């Protein structure tokens, strides 16, 4: 089987063995980040600060999970781009639906209130 031999070909070819210390470190970081995002709600921070912190902690956690736990940091660019670029199209969907939602809200307040 080719895949078996591939595993010993070094970086990016499938064999993902990394020091346990790294996993424990990331695990700890995820705990800290989760606690921080919980504290945002606990202390009832409001406004831009709240949204900014929530988004920042969310993206940091997502990045750590994908990069280290899912080993994306050690994969080859061909796989990284194939998986991480397509979701960017979702930003277009989110933008369109935010416009649409705003428009619906406007017409509802105009005609039903």
């Amino acid at each position: 089987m080719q895949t078996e031999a591939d595993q010993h070909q070094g970086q990016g070819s499938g064999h993902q063995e990394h020091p346990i210390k790294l996993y424990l470190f990331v695990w700890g970081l995820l705990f800290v980040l989760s606690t921080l995002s919980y504290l945002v709600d606990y202390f009832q921070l409001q406004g831009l600060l709240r949204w900014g912190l929530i988004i920042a902690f969310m993206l940091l956690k997502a990045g750590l999970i994908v990069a280290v736990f899912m080993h994306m940091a050690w994969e080859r660019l061909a796989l990284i781009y194939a998986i991480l670029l397509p979701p960017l199209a979702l930003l277009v969907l989110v933008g369109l639906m935010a416009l649409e939602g705003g428009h619906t809200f406007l017409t509802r307040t105009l005609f039903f209130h």
Partner: protein
Amino acid sequence: MSSTTIDPSSMPRAEAAAAPIVSHAGPDSVAGVRGLIADWSSDRETFKVSWGKAMMWIFLLSDTFIFSCFLTGYMTVRVSTTVPWPNPSEVFALHVGGVEVPLLLIAIMTFVLISSSGTMAMAVNFAYRRDRVNAATLMLVTATCGEIFVGMQAFEWSKLILEEGIRPWGNPMGAAQFGSAFFMITGFHGLHVTCGVIYLFVVAFRLLRGDYEKSGNYQIVEIAGLYWHFVDLVWVFIFALFYLW
């Protein structure tokens, strides 16, 4: 078996690395953007990973789109409603010793799921060292954490339905869309966790039985791990966008 008839698992690593592999000789050594072009441009396999891993990644990509559609739908109904949105911080609060602690159960669920991701990452590590007892044990711990998570979710759902009177078509606190968005998103995520628990149990059982000992290929543990980490990843987004927003 392709070009080589020697089973690489039966020999030490240095020799295995030296075994002749004809198909991947050249462009594999090129990294960075030149490597990207080389990988896509030649008439041979693009991803230098096993098909199982590549397919799991592509499945997870499609799942990303499904969950993103749910979350985008949730955003749309929340933006467009003229009725105030129920405050998740109060809806999901728990009474502990006479005090209302906001989002307590959700925070515990988050920590349980993150812990399960940590044990899963370690299981992958042990599997690659061919320590199958430790790997399987850690996978069972992971699956148990997942089971606890689903249990807490069932508790949360019952509390919301029976005590707070939240329904997919309305609730006493505010915007009617709250219930449908909540049940749809967390329900679909809970279904993923449940499937993941079953998947992990199956792989751990086969691992203990020694099914992968013959080929020496323990990548199945990493592939199962990819799915599990993805479930955790989706929860990160649900936690931030639904519960905290």
